[in-house]
């Protein structure tokens, strides 16, 4: 990258810090910046700074928000008696996009991961228990991934909620809509049978 002038080299170096971006992709992005209009790039820079300055964590559910309390938590039409527990904000967005959940959320910001040394102290589990104790929740819907880490996190939450007068539910697992049963792996098939329901 020696052929580029120093400001472009610095930009490439900054882009290279992004996840999944190597030096060549960073150089392509830098070229795009060079070719774009000044107003477009000013808008991009403003967006980046807005995100850094304005976005904080919701003090109720730990979702991303511009205010003290996020839009979902302050929406009177949401069912506050049901809490959907998710690993991260990306999962929250995916569930919101489905339009199938009308409760509120609790974002853990991670899952149990023994290999990486991530234990319950690094997750927002005690905050969840405190919230349940204070808010009179009827149902906790655990929507962590169906992986070893996601499952063990769900088991820990279930254990911690034993004795509370509420229902703990787990997100359904099984064959994807529009999929073909004969191509489903045996583990997914076993889960689909376990999670079968009446019709």
């Amino acid at each position, binding site marked *: 990258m020696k052929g580029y002038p120093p400001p472009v080299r610095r930009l490439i170096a900054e882009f290279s810090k992004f996840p*999944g971006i190597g030096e060549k992709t960073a150089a392509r992005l830098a070229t795009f910046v060079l070719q774009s209009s000044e107003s477009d790039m000013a808008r991009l820079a403003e967006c980046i700074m807005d995100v850094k300055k304005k976005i904080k964590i919701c003090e109720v559910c730990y979702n991303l928000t511009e205010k003290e309390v996020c839009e979902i938590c302050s929406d009177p039409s949401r069912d506050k008696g049901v809490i959907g527990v998710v690993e991260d904000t990306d999962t929250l967005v995916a569930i919101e996009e489905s339009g199938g959940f009308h409760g509120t959320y609790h974002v853990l910001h991670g899952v149990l991961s*023994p290999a990486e040394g991530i234990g319950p102290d690094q997750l927002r589990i005690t905050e969840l228990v405190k919230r349940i104790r204070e808010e009179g929740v009827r149902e906790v819907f655990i929507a962590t991934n169906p992986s070893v880490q996601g499952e063990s996190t769900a*088991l820990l939450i279930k254990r911690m909620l034993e004795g509370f007068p509420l229902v703990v539910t787990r997100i359904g697992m099984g064959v994807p809509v529009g999929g073909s049963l004969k*191509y489903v792996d045996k583990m997914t098939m076993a889960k689909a049978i376990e999670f079968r329901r009446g019709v």
Partner: protein
Amino acid sequence: MTGKMQNKATGFVLNFRDYGESDRIVTFFTDQTGKLKGIAKGARRSQKRFANAIEPFSLSAIIFSRRRAEGLCLIEDCRVLNHFPRIREDLEKTLMASYFIDLADSFTEEGAVSHRLFKHMSDFLNLLEAEKAGESIMRLFEFRLLCISGYEPTLGHCISCRKPVESLKEISFGISDGGIKCEKCAPLTAGRISISPGTARTLVAGKNMPVEKLRRLIFTEYSLRESRLFLVPLIRHITGRQLKSLNVLMEVKHLTDTI
């Protein structure tokens, strides 16, 4: 000629990490090639080639290739043979299995084949799948792993006077010695861990016992505590660090005990 050869192996997933947009770098412990590190291209998206196969402690059939003798291999296909469903649906068992693979990872070098270690992992994961997650399974896994890896602590006799443990009344374990000493050879000082001869004898008895008979081996609460008090520091001494998975296991235990 492409210059790459396709190989097959059967292995346990020791760990993995996401790489780039959709790839995963995976470490297996295989029966055929020992510890094997490779890149699984598109593993986070492909439901066909890697469906559920790259999960901690799962046993998988792997097809891989490599262009060079060293460096990452290319994981071309991975099919799960056993995902240990009973372990996965139990919090304590999952944490214990995670500790087992973390230990196995710490005691192995890439490419070093050990059929004994592979069998050891297979035996104990199957034992955990079938039995309650008792602490004795954990201590025996640690002790037998140390024996297989060449770090066997000497528990059968005093390492100074060589008197058999059966004839001794008071013994202590020295981490840097890697063995027991009787009270005459080494008085109990700050650096030594007091253990009872019964604890040493129980562990020695469990060294070569067939895994299906291990449930007959009775550890008292006292001998479990004593075993923990010297095996965990010994492992920390050998590996040079406290394993993260053990910290998480203890953190969860502390949390669930206080409920």
